[in-house]
């Protein structure tokens, strides 16, 4: 079932949670709503479910206007952030709940319910926990039961609110993979909310980046990573260095030196306008310098190593640039090097270095 969100807005008191948001979700897609706290992603999810009502705009399910439909009738599956399992019912009764609450006419027989519940518990690989109570389960188990419960009523859409937010890192990774496999098996249109970009990029078919009640960009994980549409997206996804400078002749001159980053698309901008560039840590080329203050070779930025963090899959170097106007107050440049590249030029704290940006996007201030 496809979902169409059409110019939805929502205010809470004076706070604009959603501002004229439109989005299309195709049938069978797994979409992530990604953004910082307060960006409106959970509000949007709840509006799709009918747990909140929009102030303006509409929601369509497969072309049918569902805006005024009560959540009970929408046939959506909702998985709450804190699971909301019925604490006084066993796992079995929790999963069976939706089926048992159907009006008598359409309620399946108890034997059929039993089969369906066992099927679902099997699907989430927790069939052996049927008689336990939620308080006896671990966080990850509770999450999977909550999912099984939502799937029991065969919803057309599955909505998950920060499903792995309350779990620790290793469990999250495992459940992420598991969710993706489950989706591939079931093909239910799914929307999930997260503030964890790794999760969104790893699990979803498409990512929706939201900030302050608006959608900043929609695209596949690869697209949003490689072609971020706005400064927000660029700085939200992954790490980024922000280099300050001025526009001169179609490129950004970094700080006071000679290093430049081309920005042909900004040629129209008046010269000397202030600007900045987002450069990824792996886009900064690094070489040791002969000595400190040896002067900038053309196109290179002089700097000094602050710290070398060599424990991990990459070597991370924190560099303080000699030119203090390049970075905002108190910040450092971060450069990532592969282990072999680093081995070729052993650097230590306080060594002088030179950096050259090999790419980067320029924005006007």
């Amino acid at each position: 079932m496809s979902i169409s969100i059409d110019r939805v807005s929502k205010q809470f008191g004076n706070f604009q949670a959603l501002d004229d948001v439109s989005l299309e979700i195709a049938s069978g897609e797994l979409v992530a709503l990604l953004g910082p706290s307060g960006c409106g992603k959970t509000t949007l999810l709840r509006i799709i479910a009918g747990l909140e009502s929009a102030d303006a705009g509409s929601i369509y399910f497969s072309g049918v206007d569902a805006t005024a439909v009560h959540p009970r009738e929408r046939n959506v599956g909702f998985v709450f952030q804190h699971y909301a399992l019925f604490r006084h019912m066993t796992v079995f009764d929790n999963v069976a709940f939706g089926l048992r609450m159907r009006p008598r006419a359409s309620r399946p027989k108890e034997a059929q319910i039993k089969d369906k519940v066992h099927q679902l518990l099997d699907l989430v690989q927790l069939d052996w926990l049927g008689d336990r109570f939620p308080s006896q389960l671990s966080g990850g188990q509770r999450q999977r039961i909550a999912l099984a419960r939502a799937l029991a009523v065969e919803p057309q859409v599955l909505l998950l609110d920060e499903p792995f937010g309350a779990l620790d890192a290793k469990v999250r990774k495992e459940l992420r993979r598991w969710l993706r496999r489950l989706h591939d098996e079931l093909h239910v249109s799914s929307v999930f909310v997260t503030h964890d970009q790794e999760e969104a990029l790893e699990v979803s078919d498409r990512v929706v980046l939201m900030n302050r009640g608006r959608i900043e960009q929609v695209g596949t994980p690869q697209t949003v990573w490689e072609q971020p549409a706005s400064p927000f997206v660029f700085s939200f996804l992954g790490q980024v260095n922000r280099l300050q400078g001025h526009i001169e002749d179609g490129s950004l001159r970094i700080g006071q030196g000679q290093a430049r980053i081309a920005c042909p698309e900004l040629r129209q901008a008046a010269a000397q306008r202030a600007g900045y560039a987002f450069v990824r840590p792996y886009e900064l080329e690094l070489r040791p310098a002969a000595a400190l203050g040896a002067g900038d070779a053309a196109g290179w930025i002089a700097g000094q190593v602050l710290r070398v963090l060599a424990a991990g899959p990459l070597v991370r170097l924190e560099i303080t640039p000699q030119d203090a106007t390049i970075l905002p107050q108190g910040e450092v440049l971060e450069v990532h090097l592969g282990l072999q590249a680093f081995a070729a030029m052993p650097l230590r704290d306080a060594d002088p270095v030179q950096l050259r940006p090999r790419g980067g996007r320029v924005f006007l201030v």
Partner: protein
Amino acid sequence: MQTLAAGRPSVAGAARGKSLRVLPGFKLTLAFTLFYLSIIVLIPLSGLFAKTLTLDWQQFVSAVSSPRVMASYRLTFGASLIAALINTVFGLVIAWVLVRYDFFGKKLIDALVDLPFALPTAVAGISLTALLASNGWIGSVLEPYGIALAFNPNGVVIALTFIGLPFVVRTVQPVLEDCEQELEEAAMCLGATPWQSFAHVIFPTIAPALLTGFAMAFARGVGEYGSVIFIAGNMPMVSEITPLIIIGKLEQYDYAGATAVASVLLVASFAMLFVINALQTWQRQRLGASS
């Protein structure tokens, strides 16, 4: 919830002007709640105020301030105050002991603290009288020393102490339990003596709850009837409580007088309710700020 941010077009023809309440039953339960509240509490109470307004001022003042009635105010409010103070001190001790120490019979004592709350006031009244009368277990022990605790204002204070005990204990207990152990440990590491730790770290945290308990015990004492009239002695000008005066006037069909005195008690009740609410709000803010 407000609808329609100004100036935004509503696109499809969906219902507006009413926000969807997800959980059902709001209108039904709210309407019934307000209805029942009005019928049982608000309308009858306003009936009393309406009646008060029909009294002429002279009548009212003379009923409310006659010497006998004034004496009863002194007794009722005075004894409640003393009883509430006693309860504040001992209630704190009991709450402290229940929360922080382990001892044989702790669970029993903890349950028993609620006894004055669950026991009928008349039963409390006759039981305390039996204990404190000159031939009772305690009364007989104290009589040779000339201490009489029954049939005089002392008895009133004791009865009100019994009644008010659970209020202080039960308001302080949860706050004491939520007192983070780390705070005391920090104080200890920084060199504070146990007394300093209590005075500067623990006491400020429980002070609002203590005050609330005090106010509740006091408010309860002022209106108390059943547990007091058996032990008080009920002698006019000496050991007569205000509720008894109201009943006396009723028995003489002096509705005006009874209403007048009752309105004084009612105003005191409202004032106490207001104070207690303010204290509870303060307590919530205190705890909210520190957590």
